[in-house]
């Protein structure tokens, strides 16, 4: 039996699934003062109803997101080896210390960190948490590692986040931001980790506990303890994974998670939700944290409905609950209640809400329909924008211009409390099918329960220099003999990935090549070798699909 718990803004949901079926679900209020209270209440409820052997507990929690949003961040000494290039002053969340030392684009350490400078410039402060980031550290981790060792030895560092460990992809700015946020939430997350371990032990639950990440994959709690920032934005990620478990989404699809104030859109191609290029934005800072590409539209159940001239506008503001529930302004939910597409609160008050919209000549039901159509149109604009953005994203090969990918939207998937009325109408406007999976209301917890672990490595092999590097693994070493062709490089990357997955005690599934580039390198007027860049990942997805009941 797999257990999934999702901590949301209002509710903490938990589910138990086994053999492709949902065994039990529960919703308890989220306990904002101490998330753990609500988590354990939900857990206890499920365990008492389903006395089966638990094989995994998966937790999707707003813990990290809240810490960042509420500014509960520890002071961090941010150390940056920027080398030549963009001046980062003013671009980072805190003022960094710029240190000597850098690696060039080929992975050559042009300048090593300078011990004398470190002694002089890094204060012996009480803050024992550091973030270290070096340009091109993913091509050569030496400088970051030297600094790490130095901090542990000379400054008794309790924790050092290395940018290169966060992501093996090129983007120093994003790795630096990500490393900072990781270090800033590290200590408190450690406490959370200890508390939850203790609570599970007290309940004799020995099944592994995994944490959901922003990319919809899971990681073991211990790994999360070192990279807590990856557990940011898991709410939408859990919902996306739930959709994957509940539907068979082939072709190009868009999913709508309709909440109280927003609708989160995700774009799907051939059964996989697309990732955000480069990573997630945390606050307003781009980071290298892998995350789904989501677009949030200010249309939700509680969105205010008003008239702008003759036109009905839904959201983006919320001015209290639906009038059906005692609110003071008409909301989208009121329209749904009038049309019997939602059932809560007072129907009379909902009708009064619609009636007060100055749409002459329309009956109350017609007014409600007009409101829902307006909401659907707003969502459709966002869907079109998302498709267009994907179709016109930068590409680097001539063939991608001469044979561009045209996205043909096949379906709109709706999950979340208020999804059906919007998804149905949006799909009709787009001429696409509408998919409304069962259990959509606890899709988040289901997503957490069944997500596979994700792990990615970026291998760069340079046969001219005879070297390779893998940023995520902090590796830069001689390229093994025989690794000189595309096939051999791919095999080598796969081998490194599997090793790493085993070390992290991850459930082994399939692995796949995300991208592979090969460049002939010419010196003088002769081909002297190749540069290969291979991005390889454990195939993301779900451990089981849930059958239609």
């Amino acid at each position, binding site marked *: 039996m797999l257990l999934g718990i999702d901590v949301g803004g209002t509710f903490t949901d938990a589910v138990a699934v086994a053999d492709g079926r949902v065994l039990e679900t529960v919703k308890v209020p989220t306990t904002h003062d101490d998330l753990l209270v609500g988590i354990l209440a939900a857990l206890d409820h499920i365990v008492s109803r389903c006395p089966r052997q638990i094989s995994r507990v998966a937790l999707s929690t707003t813990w990290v997101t809240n810490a960042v949003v509420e500014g509960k961040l520890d002071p961090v000494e941010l150390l940056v080896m*920027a080398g*030549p*290039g*963009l*001046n980062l*002053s003013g*671009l980072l969340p805190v003022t960094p210390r710029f240190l000597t030392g850098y690696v*060039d*684009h*080929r992975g050559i350490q*042009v300048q090593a960190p300078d011990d004398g400078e470190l002694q002089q410039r890094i204060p012996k402060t009480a803050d024992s948490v550091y973030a270290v980031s070096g*340009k*091109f550290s993913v091509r050569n981790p030496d400088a970051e590692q030297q600094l790490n060792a130095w901090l542990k030895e000379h400054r008794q560092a309790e924790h050092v986040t290395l940018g290169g460990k966060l992501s093996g*992809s*090129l*983007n*120093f*700015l*994003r790795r630096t931001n990500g490393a900072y946020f990781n270090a800033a939430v590290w200590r408190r997350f450690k406490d959370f980790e200890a508390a939850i371990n203790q609570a599970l032990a007290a309940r004799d639950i020995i099944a592994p506990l995994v944490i959901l990440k922003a990319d919809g994959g899971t990681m073991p709690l211990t790994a999360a303890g070192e990279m807590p920032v990856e557990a940011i934005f898991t709410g939408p990620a859990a919902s996306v994974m739930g959709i994957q478990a509940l539907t068979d989404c082939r072709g190009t699809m868009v999913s709508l998670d309709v909440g109280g104030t927003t609708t989160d859109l995700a774009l799907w191609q051939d059964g996989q939700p697309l990732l955000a290029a*480069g990573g997630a934005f945390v606050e307003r800072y*781009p980071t290298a944290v892998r995350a789904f590409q989501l677009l949030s539209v200010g249309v939700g159940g509680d969105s205010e409905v008003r008239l702008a001239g003759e036109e009905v506008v839904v959201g983006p503001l919320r001015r209290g609950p639906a009038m059906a529930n005692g609110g003071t302004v008409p909301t989208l939910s009121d329209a749904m209640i009038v049309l019997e597409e939602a059932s809560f609160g007072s129907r009379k008050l909902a009708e009064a809400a619609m009636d007060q919209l100055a749409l002459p000549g329309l009956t109350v039901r017609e007014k409600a329909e007009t409101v829902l159509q307006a909401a659907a149109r707003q969502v459709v604009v966002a869907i079109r924008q998302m498709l267009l953005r994907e179709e*016109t*994203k*930068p*590409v*680097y*090969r*001539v*063939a991608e*211009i*001469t044979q561009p990918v045209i996205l043909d939207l096949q379906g709109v998937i709706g999950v979340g409390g208020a999804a059906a009325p919007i998804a149905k109408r949006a799909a009709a406007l787009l001429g696409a099918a509408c998919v409304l999976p069962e259990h959509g209301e606890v899709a988040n917890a289901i997503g957490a329960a069944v997500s596979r672990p994700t792990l990615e490595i970026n291998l760069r092999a340079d046969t001219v220099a005879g070297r390779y590097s893998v940023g995520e693994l902090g590796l830069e070493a001689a390229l093994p003999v025989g690794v000189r062709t595309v096939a051999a490089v791919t095999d080598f990357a796969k081998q490194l990935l599997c090793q790493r997955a085993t070390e992290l005690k991850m459930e082994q599934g399939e692995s796949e090549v995300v991208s592979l*580039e090969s*460049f*002939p*390198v*010419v010196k003088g*007027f*002769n*081909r002297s070798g190749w*540069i290969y860049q291979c991005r390889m990942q454990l195939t993301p997805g779900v451990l089981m699909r849930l059958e239609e009941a």
Partner: protein
Amino acid sequence: MERKELGLVFFPAFDWAISQTHPERQERLLYTRDQLLEEGVLDLPQIREYRPGMAEWADLERVHIGVPGLESLVKDAHRVAAGGAIEAGKAVCSGETARAFALVRPPGHHAMRVVHGTRGFCTVNMEAIMIEHLRRHHGIGRVAIVDTDVHHGDGTQDIYYHDPDTLFISFHQDGRTLYPGSGFVEEQGGPAAFGTTFNIPLPVGTGDAGLHRVLDELVLPVLADFKPDLIINSAGQDNHYSDPLANMSVTAQGYGRLAEKLRADVAVLEGGYSIEGALPYVNLGILLAMAGLDYSRVIEPDRERCPAQSADVTAYIEKLIQERRQTWRERENLKRREIARWGDEWQRRRSVYYDDSGIEEEQRETARLCHHCYGWQGIDTSSRGSFGRKSAYAAIIPRNACKRCLQEAQDAVWSAKQAGRHQYYYIQNRQTDCLERIGGKK
């Protein structure tokens, strides 16, 4: 939509090469790509990235006359690079971005109006294709092109040699010491456009100091006098001290400062073949400067290898600047004298060599001088290569052609056709925006 400082079309054409070991190969912008990605500049709020489109054949034929046709000479990669330049120009003309940088390959500034093949790595002229597209569709009038590639932009010069609305300024390593062997001070445009071709041939070893003297005392004042609607930078990066194909001493800082002072509306990448040591830094410097960001920390790891500019070079450049300033000041007089000297018709003969295609072309070019319009031009061209011989006669009718010039140009093509000395006959009519093929045998 909020206006951005810089539109960037980055298109490294990772699946295209002239040939496997040619400098124009897949690897050329690989290290630049790595540097730009690693710096994270594409995430900055000042920059918006655009994807190139494919330039239409009509966009290409607005500028070029391919013999026998462009279809057999032009690859998809050329149309995408030209499309990238057009996209950059559109971003600026639509007001979406203040400036734009088309970081595309292959380059184009050695491609002339008549195209028989590929020369100096260029087949079609990216800047000219963009400019003529913007003139046709976005109402752009006067344009200045500042070619900062180390090689003389002989293709761009050729295309605009008779167009008084387009100022072509090129500084480059002196043609006596470098391909393509042109770009001397005497090349100043046809009589109707005399002075709007402005060459500044620089001595071997020119560094940041010399380049910025030329910029401050010559290029910027000339631009200010000309008052263009649009400034285009043919941004070649082979003046860099590490470039393997030339002998100058400019640094990434020198290029960054150049971009900052020039304030070009659109920059289009031209040459630059120090792909590891220069391009990642020079491209980054230009990009940051154009986006109004601090580029002062963009410094090559091996900058101490950059030779200092010698006193001789400094003195030579001083003198050159004085002479060129003098010429510019007297340009109206010189133009009148030139018109008087040629009378009704200007003409020249020349040979053009296509090094990448092994083709030799002989051209006889005429330009009709007219008081009512810019006058029409006739080009009698024949080439020799592995295909044997090709020959064509073409007339070019200017945007503002008067009735008489229009008639004369058409008559000239028809009588050439009757005489039958050529295989192909063309009228490039810039008034109707169309390239007509007249009869012609296959």
